[in-house]
Structures are given as C-alpha cells and as structure tokens.
C-alpha cells in the first residue's frame, strides 16, 4: 500500500510539472516499461501458482536407453559384427529419514549379445543389474557413512585415472554405452569425516573389485582368447582379499589439494603364474597427491601417483608388473562461446627399468620406460544447448597408438534424446594399449527417454 501511495504521489508531482503530452507526443514515455505486477502494474499471470508447484516425488522410472553398435571392419577373432544391441530400463528409488537415507538404482537389461542372461550380482551380469544399493547414515554432524553398492569417483583427470582406483568398465566405455557405465560400482563402506584442516574419505571394500574385462565376444585384444574366457586367478577371499581407498582433501583459496592412498591389487590381470599358466592380480599400493585450481582463465590440474607393485618381478613362478610413477598435467578453458578445450599430458614411468627388463616374461609386450599420452577434449554446445558435439582424443606418441571418441547428442525435447558416436582405435603395434584394439573400431547410436 505504501508503495502504491508513493507511486500516486510521484505521478501527481510529475503532472504538476506541466500538462501531460498526448499519446504519440510523449517521447519521454516511449519505451518506458509498464510497472510489473506487485509494483502497481496490472496483475498478470495469476496462473503461476499451479505451474510452480514442486515437481513432485520422482517416480520409480528414471530412463529407458536403447543402443545398437557395429564394428566398421571385419575381425577374425570375433564372430559378431555387432558390438552393442541392448535396451535397458533404469529404476530408482530413494527414501530419506532424519539422519539416514536409502538409495536404489537398478537396470533391467535386455542384451541381445549376451549368451547367458542369468543374474550374477557379484560379476554385474544378467538381466537385472544393481548399480547402487546403499544405506547412508549421518552418525555425527561431521561424519557421513554409506554402506552398500555405490559408484565412487575422485581425482582430477578427465578419463585418465591415477588415484581413482575404483573399478572401471572399459568394455562398456569402448562399445559405446552411456558414459556413466565406465564407472563400475563398489561394494563397500565409505566413511567421510569433515575437519577444519582436512576432510578424509576412507573406503573399505571387503572383497576385491577388479576392472571389468573386455568382452572377447565384442572386442578383440592382445592375447585375446577368442571364444574362451581369460583364465585368471582372482583374489576373492572376503575380508582378506580386501581393499582400502583413502583420500584427504582440503581447499586452499581457490585451489583444491588432496592426498590419496590405496592398498589392494592391480585392477587388471597384470601378473602371470608360469607354472599354472594363469593370470594373476598382484598386490598393489598407490600413494599420490593432486592439486586443481584456476590459472589464466582456465582450470589447471596436476596429479601424481606412485604405483608400488609389491611383488614386482619374478618370484618363483609368479610374475608381477613393475612399480611405476604416474603423472598427469591438465588444463581446460573456454576457447570461444560454448566451445571448450581440455588438454592433458599423462606419463607412466617404470621405476626400476633394469629390473623390469631382466624379469620380463618372454612373449610379453616390451614396454618403453616412459609411456607418454596426450589427450584433448573439444566440446561445443549449439541450438540452446540442445545439441552437444564432443571429441575426445587419446594419442600416445611413444606407443604410436591412439583412440578417438567423437559424439553427438541431441535433445529432441525435455524427455527424448538421441546419440550417435564412434570409438576409433589405431596403432602400429598389436601389443600397445590402443594398438591391440585397432580392429575394434565401432559406431553406435542410441535413443534415450528420461521419465
């Protein structure tokens, strides 16, 4: 009311300055906005209330995702031309209590390329896949806990992982599943504590979770067994073949600093037992650190990890890979409007190269002391951000191999999206990381409906 009265006062004062000009002869008023509703203007859009009501409790259905992928060249080692032919329905449920919450994320999967659709919760196979089943607790104002299956990520790399030892699913990544499937969930207890000096995350997994294997029915690789399954001796004793993941982190101004630790096993079958002719997952500890912050209008990150291969070399008939220093330097910034560039340099340096050469298994790849990898990510948003184009490239000048990941994602409306992408592998040698995959170049397309 006070406002309206004041407005009238001003109007009267203005009028007292002289007679109001007739319409069309009032230059001072041309273009002057009418007062909005609430400031003495006409009350418009009274229907707003209904539209503003909360979106409501999310339903059980989260998304429906259908994908098909084919390889672009023949591969003698793989029968099928398809790398991907599946449809999945994501179900999610959440419930909150005062100091606790429960979350369930699960996929119902129809995979035309899977031979066996039986459910194996541990191996994450079958028509029902549990992505997340976790109970969150807040036993103290400075402590969060999460118990159960969960997806965990830390570290500063973009698709390059040094101190993030949580299991990966490169098979899903290389055949063109949605990017979230690169991260395989962990069955673990996570305890997060928050102090003034440092925050600490401790993750305990009572049972070793390896990276998921490349699927020899879809992808061929070095030593690819064709139709047979890789013979490996997986550490699988509960509470003795366990893993610890640790992170201590803090902010310092605009910079984020972190220390990391890991105690467990190599995430892939990097070791070998000569007598039994089986692959092994040798013991591994990792110690590392990272920093991330603003630099010259962009974001700079540096990360280091020492991979302490506790059984490095040949012991009896068991062979384990050498210890390594791993280093990542990254920088990302905006190049132009809605065009971003990210560059990374990634070094893997074998710690005791002489020992490595002495103990190397006959027939195994002869690695250089240093593996250099450069990555570039270029992403562009168009059409009110409904169209997203991106290209991620890994190139290793030392291994003379590389990987390109072009993607196009278009949102048809608030619910429907289509994606087209490719996984392009190239390399001179069949025993380098990407070179071994060079017959697997594939293209894929996807349709996704978000409920």
């Amino acid at each position: 009311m006070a406002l309206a009265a004041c407005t009238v006062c001003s109007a009267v004062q203005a009028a007292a300055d002289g007679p109001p000009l007739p319409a069309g002869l009032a230059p001072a008023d041309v273009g002057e906005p009418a007062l909005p509703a609430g400031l003495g203007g006409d009350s418009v859009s009274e229907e707003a209330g209904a539209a503003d009501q909360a979106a409501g409790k999310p339903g059980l259905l989260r998304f429906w995702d259908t994908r098909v992928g084919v390889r672009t060249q023949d591969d003698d080692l793989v029968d099928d031309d398809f790398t991907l032919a599946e449809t999945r329905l994501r179900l999610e449920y959440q419930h909150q209590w005062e100091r606790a919450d429960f979350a369930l994320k699960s996929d119902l999967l129809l995979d035309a390329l899977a031979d066996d659709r039986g459910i194996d919760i541990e191996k994450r196979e079958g028509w029902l896949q549990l992505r997340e089943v976790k109970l969150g607790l807040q036993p103290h104002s400075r402590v969060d806990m999460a118990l159960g299956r969960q997806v965990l990520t830390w570290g500063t790399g973009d698709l390059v992982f040094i101190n993030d030892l949580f299991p990966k699913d490169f098979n899903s990544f290389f055949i063109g599943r949605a990017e979230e499937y690169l991260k395989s969930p962990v069955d673990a207890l996570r305890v997060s504590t928050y102090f003034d000096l440092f925050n600490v995350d401790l993750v305990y997994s009572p049972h070793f979770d390896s990276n998921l294997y490349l699927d020899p029915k879809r992808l061929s690789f070095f030593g690819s067994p064709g139709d047979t399954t890789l013979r490996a001796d997986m550490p699988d004793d509960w509470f003795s073949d366990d893993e610890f993941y640790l992170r201590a982190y803090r902010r310092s101004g605009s910079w984020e600093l972190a220390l990391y630790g890991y105690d467990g096993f190599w995430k892939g079958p990097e070791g070998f037992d000569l007598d039994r002719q089986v692959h092994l997952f040798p013991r591994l500890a990792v110690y590392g650190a990272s920093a991330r912050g603003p630099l010259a209008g962009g974001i700079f990150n540096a990360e280091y990890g020492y991979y302490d291969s506790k059984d490095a070399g040949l012991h009896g008939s068991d062979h384990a890979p050498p210890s390594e220093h791993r280093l990542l330097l990254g920088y990302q910034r905006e190049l132009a409007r809605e065009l971003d560039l990210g560059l990374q340099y990634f070094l893997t340096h074998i710690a005791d190269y002489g020992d490595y050469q002495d103990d190397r298994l006959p027939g195994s790849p002869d690695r250089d002391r240093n593996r250099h990898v450069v990555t570039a990510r270029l992403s562009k948003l168009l059409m009110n951000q409904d169209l997203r184009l991106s290209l991620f490239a890994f190139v290793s000048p030392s291994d003379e191999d590389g990987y390109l990941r072009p993607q196009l994602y278009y949102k048809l409306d608030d619910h429907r999206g289509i994606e087209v992408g490719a996984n392009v592998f190239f390399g001179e040698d069949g025993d380098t990381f990407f070179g071994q995959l060079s017959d697997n170049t594939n293209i894929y397309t996807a349709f996704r409906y978000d409920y």
Partner: protein
Amino acid sequence: MFGVVVERVSTAAAIVAQFVIAGVAVAQDVPPVEDIVERTNCVAYYSAQDGRAQVSMTITDQQGRTRSRRMSILRLDAPSGGQEQSGCRNQKYYVYFHRPTDVRGTVLTVWKQSGQDDDRWLYLPALDLVRRIAAGDKRTSFVGSHFFYEDISGRNITDDEHELVEASANYYVLKGRPADPESVEFKHYVIWIHRSTFIPVKVEFFDAQDRLYRVYQATKVETVQGFPTVVESRMEDRVSGGNTTLKFSRVQYDLGIADENFDERFLRNPPRNLLR
C-alpha cells in the same frame, strides 16, 4: 540473487560531465547515480544475508518449441564487514537441478569472489564426479536459456560506467556502458529502475550497431519478509526471436544457511530440507 544485470559506479567526474552534457533536469530527490546503482545491486542480488527459491524456467526457441528447467537455488553472502559495498561482497550459490530429468541431481556451486574469477563446480551424480568448471565467459547461456550466467548471479557493478538519462515518476533510467567493451557483446544498455524499491524493471541491450537485441523485463514482484523480490521475469532475444521466462516460488530469506552447505560434502549429500 533474484534479479538481473547490475552495474558499475562511474567516477564522480564522469557523472558530473554526463549531467551537464545530457542536460537532464534532475529533481532534487534524485540520489547520485552511484547510489542508485549500488542500491539496485543490493535489491537485485543481496536481499538479506541468505535466501532460497524454487525456480522454474521455460525456454522458448524461435520456432516456438519449449524446454523447461526446474531448480532449487540457495544463496549465502559473506558476512558484511560494514566497510565494503554490497557489490563487492563475496557470495556463494548452490543450484540443484530437478528437471529435465536427465540432469536430476546435478548440482552447480558458484563461489563469487571480488577481484578474481568465480570458482565453479559441477557435480554429476551418475558418475559421482565433482568437475571443476572454468569461470569462462559469464555472458554465455545459463543452462541453455536466454539468461546468461551473469544475469543469474549478478554483474560486477564496477564493470560498467553509468549515467542517469532520466528520472520519471516511476523510474530512474540509467544508461550503462562497459568499461571494457571487448569483454561483452553489448555496446550499451538502458535500465529502468523502480524509484521506490530500486528493482530493475527493464533492461534493453544494444549491440555495436545500436540495434536493440536483448530485453529483460521483471513482470511480477512480491514483497517477501520485507524484501521486494522479482518473482517473474523474462529475457527476450530480439534477434533469434526466442525467450526465457523465470518464475520464483517459495522464496525465503534469512534462513541461517550454513557456509558448509556450499562445500563438496553437500554436492554429494544435498541439503534436502533447504531444497524443498
């Protein structure tokens, strides 16, 4: 928090010069232009110590197709030291996305700090990934809408120079020019500031050819806990023909939002009682 474009205080000499050149008859009760700018900035982005709102956004493109977004926004101002102007105070924002559903659970936090680039983080729940985002160009679209980042979180008032064009019955009409013309896409803008509330009611942006290409308008104002608050607004792109409307609901101020709510911990564990 809930407003649009905020401007710069020019030097006293410049103001005096403008008054003389423009020959504007200024009523006695018109405050100095820097005070108008300062108070407008305060009303638009610094109401109370903290605030929250539910925001629904409707984006209409040139072909009439619509996209919607729903988010909850929290805002916290750094404690006032008493000395500094409001426009220089640090702020933190927390934006939780509800819709569209493919980004549900995504959280954006922004730490605005005077004299340096904003710090921004984006949390992607599907990957449990905390991504750092370069501050970048603040005049790029916020989540695909016709609003820019800077429209949502405020433009530094020292980035533009202002002159008073007119003081009408309802409005102070100011013209703003960027101090660094290379840094922005506009050559100047004209802003209508409501005299008694200091709410920016309309802003017209003009490009290098003096062509009007972008128009902001506050369409509904409510007084919440004594603070006049724009609860409906609209940004039009006069070149493409598209527009975005914003509606704020459940606006509340001075909730005593704790500083830690803007930390990494609460990206992973959203403060649901504040986001409802």
